[in-house]
């Protein structure tokens, strides 16, 4: 039972996809978190609920929805194929999309909480000193919410690392191209290669442990 170069590829691929997925959701996720924390608008509840859905729905359902959207005949898939020649389903792009969609709610919820905890008086004070909304956000809100937001990012990353249901639906399981750690484990079990499956499982546990520990550490208030 040895570890071979292909196995490293799977680990590397999974981590790299999780990084990409997390980067992709960072700007919209934080922006959304801010909008939910600091503004009220028509349809806010709907947006709140929709963003949280992937957390509660079975991942395969989310995967199914994405498949319908990005499949060759789906609205987004067709547009991407016809206008740009981009194929999504069964490629690494599908992996990134699946990871992004599944981990977005974690980021938004954590970031929203962190932003809500920032005393609005600081933001108002900044406004009296002439700062516009963007400046207030980047110089006051975000720095003061930094820890909670970081914790959310790490949690989102950890979720992306372990994502399975949606990934397998829209990215399939193409060796060397879309096989992530969790998909590989599933595969190995189907092939009856439990030993190798356990090897990968151990890697998953280690990655998950490190991520969650980091997230916990970050969200603990700093000892003054």
């Amino acid at each position, binding site marked *: 039972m040895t570890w071979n170069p292909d196995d490293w590829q799977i680990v590397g691929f999974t981590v790299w996809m999780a990084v990409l997925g997390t980067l992709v959701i960072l700007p919209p996720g934080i922006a959304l978190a801010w909008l939910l924390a600091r503004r009220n608008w028509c349809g806010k509840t709907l947006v709140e609920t929709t963003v949280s859905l992937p957390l509660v729905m079975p991942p395969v359902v989310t995967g199914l929805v994405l498949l319908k959207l990005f499949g060759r005949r789906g609205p987004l898939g067709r547009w991407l194929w016809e206008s740009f020649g981009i194929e999504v389903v069964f490629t690494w792009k599908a992996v990134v999309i699946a990871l992004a969609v599944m981990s977005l709610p974690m980021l938004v919820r954590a970031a929203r909480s962190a932003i809500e905890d920032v005393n609005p008086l600081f933001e*108002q*004070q900044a*406004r*009296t000193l*002439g700062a516009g909304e963007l400046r207030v956000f980047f*110089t006051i809100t975000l*720095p003061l919410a930094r820890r909670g937001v970081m914790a959310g990012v790490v949690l989102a990353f950890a979720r992306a690392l372990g994502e399975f249901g949606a990934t397998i639906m829209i990215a399939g399981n193409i060796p060397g191209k879309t096989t992530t750690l969790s998909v590989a484990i599933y595969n190995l079990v189907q092939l009856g290669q439990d030993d190798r499956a356990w090897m990968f499982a151990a890697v998953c546990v280690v990655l998950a442990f490190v991520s969650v520990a980091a997230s916990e550490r970050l969200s603990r208030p700093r000892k003054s």
Partner: protein
Amino acid sequence: MKHSLDADFEKSYVGGPVIRMQNCAALTGKGITVLFGISGSGKTTILRCIAGLERPDSGHIRFGGEVWSDAARNVFLPARLRSIGLVPQEYGLFPHLTVFGNVSYGLVKMIAAERRQRVAELLEWLGLEGFKNRFPCELSGGQQQRVALARALASRPRLLLLDEPLSALDNPTRVRLRRELRGLLLTARIPAIIVTHDRQEAAALGDEIMVMHDGCMIQHGPVNEVFSKPVSHGVADILAVETILPGEILANNDGIAVVRVNGISLQALAGSLPPMTKDVFVCIRAEDVSLSSPGENAASPRNRLSAMVTGIVREGPLVRIGLDCGFSLTALLTPQASEELDLVDGCRVTALIKAPRIHLIPR
């Protein structure tokens, strides 16, 4: 006028009272106006409306000819365009920025060298040299207050707004800074509105005072005038005039009125009382009551009342004496005076009150 504030607006919160500021054409000079009232009377709301952090429901706010808010025409200038300096109650120093970062926050339009210079100037002027790189959590209350002030003044605002600037400080610091603050504000030559619920602070800091009660401004004018001539019982109460008692005018000759309170006759100035007023409230400030040993008669105050001391309480540098002269009266004396008169509970003294110091309010 360049520095005049013309405000007439209303603001209310769901489930809360309506806060109203009427016909206020204050700040016709570069002075300090005090917005005075007990907690909950709406002072902070008014300040926030003037600052542009809240939008009034109706009415308008104009400063120096510029329209800051006009509900009827749906005009609202946001806070960042109003060129104001705000010092909130807890100072609101940005905890993640150093003193330099805080003070220079509003100075983005300057080049770096100018910014450094301006900050250095302000810190020096406020006695904070060397604090540039400290964080707010490392500063004392008084130091934080000065940093907040520096930050508000840095971009040379047209109007300064201070919300309870001294309430977060301990007593000795408060008393010391009271005088300093006024000096600083006048030197800065920027008109200021200070919100406070502390009578002594209002008296020490303000040129003009606006008294708030229940969300409304019920009296405004120069500080001394308002304090000595409260226009109603309510105002007198808020200003903590110590003795307010119902009385009846028995006679009114040549502007001197004879008022009976609890069977005791007092002489007071009729002042601006409407003619034919019979029922009044009699207001006497403790500062205006002098005491002398019983029996001494040669003194100018018209009102000499025989009284018994009911209580002696030390109040800061002064002593507050409770008296019973047929009605309840309070006097404020220095400790030496109190000693010289050998004041103890139960001893008899004569209370002297000058007629012009007794203020009458129609009932």
